[in-house]
């Protein structure tokens, strides 16, 4: 319940306050969001399977976001930024689907 409240509060705050991020970080925000979604789905899956640890969750969240952004940043520096961004999104999307399948199995056994 509290995470849901947190998510809603974040969305509302983001809509109402319209905070702006620095121009430098702007290209990496979408990738970071996808990585965060991956971490969130993984955490939910782990929770449903009974192996959830908050420390692992926090560390995996931060490292996912940072690594994804770093990969895209390095790609930008060496001129393959858009391709690497696509690759990262694809990999994270596959992981999200795997986690979603595990969550579905845990919740509905189907």
């Amino acid at each position, binding site marked *: 319940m509290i995470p849901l409240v947190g998510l809603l509060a*974040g*969305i509302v705050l*983001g809509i109402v306050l319209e905070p702006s991020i620095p121009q430098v970080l702007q*290209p990496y925000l979408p990738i970071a*969001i996808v990585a965060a979604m991956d971490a*969130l789905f993984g955490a939910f899956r782990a929770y449903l399977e*009974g192996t959830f640890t*908050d420390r692992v969750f926090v560390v995996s969240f931060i490292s996912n976001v940072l690594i994804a952004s770093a990969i895209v940043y390095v790609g930008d520096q060496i001129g393959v930024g*858009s391709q690497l961004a696509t690759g990262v999104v694809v990999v994270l999307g596959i992981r999200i689907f795997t986690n979603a399948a595990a969550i579905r199995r*845990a919740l509905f056994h189907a």
Partner: protein
Amino acid sequence: MPDEVRPDVRAAEPSPRRQRPRSRSHNAASRRVSSLRRSQRRLAGEEHPRAVTVDEARPAAQPAGRTSEAADAARSTRARLRASLLHPGRGQILAAIILFIVGVAGAMQIHVNTADDAYASARREDLIQLLDGLSAESRRLEGEIAQLEQTRSNLQSGADTQRVARSEAERHLTELSILAGTSPAAGQGIRMRIADPKAAVDARVLLDAVEEMRDAGAEVIEVNNTIRVVGSTWFGSDARGLLIDGKLVSRPITLEVIGEPHSLEEAARFRGGIVSEITGPRIGGQVQIEQEDRVVIESLHTSRENQYARPAPSPSTPR
């Protein structure tokens, strides 16, 4: 979640909350152990009260053929969900914080995506590609503009050509109507009076006179101020006398001719010409020629409507 379920579960699971302060004081390994133990306890402890409530809440959700293990597992995950909803732990608060961050970031990104144009977050290569595309497009459009302007000037000059052709045709029409005798004419020319006391001037002589005038560049010829001589004019005679186009010609005969006066007079007077023939012994007439600055010819030739010939549509001429 049905409301009546909550008190049962709350009563059944007080342990994780009690456990928390103790685990915080320990080191990392013991925290991990305690969290594992906590989840184990949660799995074990919640099974019985939840088994009752879930079965009560949704009997239809459980298919008849499902094994009891699967039902137990489903019940355990749902029970864990419900328990965590009622008894949030540290992990939930962390998750709430992180979800809060994700929510803010997502809203921000959506806002940036929709409010800002797509170029603000585009990469440099993408921008360069966009710029290239735009300049190529503008080059293409410039070419198109030039082509269209060319077409426009072509059309305008075409219209000019048409206007020139029309005025030319109108000029031709007036010329031809003068030649055909359907419109009056005026201009410099000569007036030739043929005195013919013996009435010996016949149609042949008159035709000779007209043809010589024409050879000398006569544009309009009129006989006796009444008969317009045109291309189809015929000369003849019958018992009454001389006829031109079926009209009787009275004597003396006056020819009014529009053309270059000097050459007309010369054409009439040259040796063996019309004047010498008329003044010769056979006819014995006299010819008096006056050059005039302005000869007005008002008699008209009434052209007959063609009975069979019709103007054919002209073949399309390239402009």
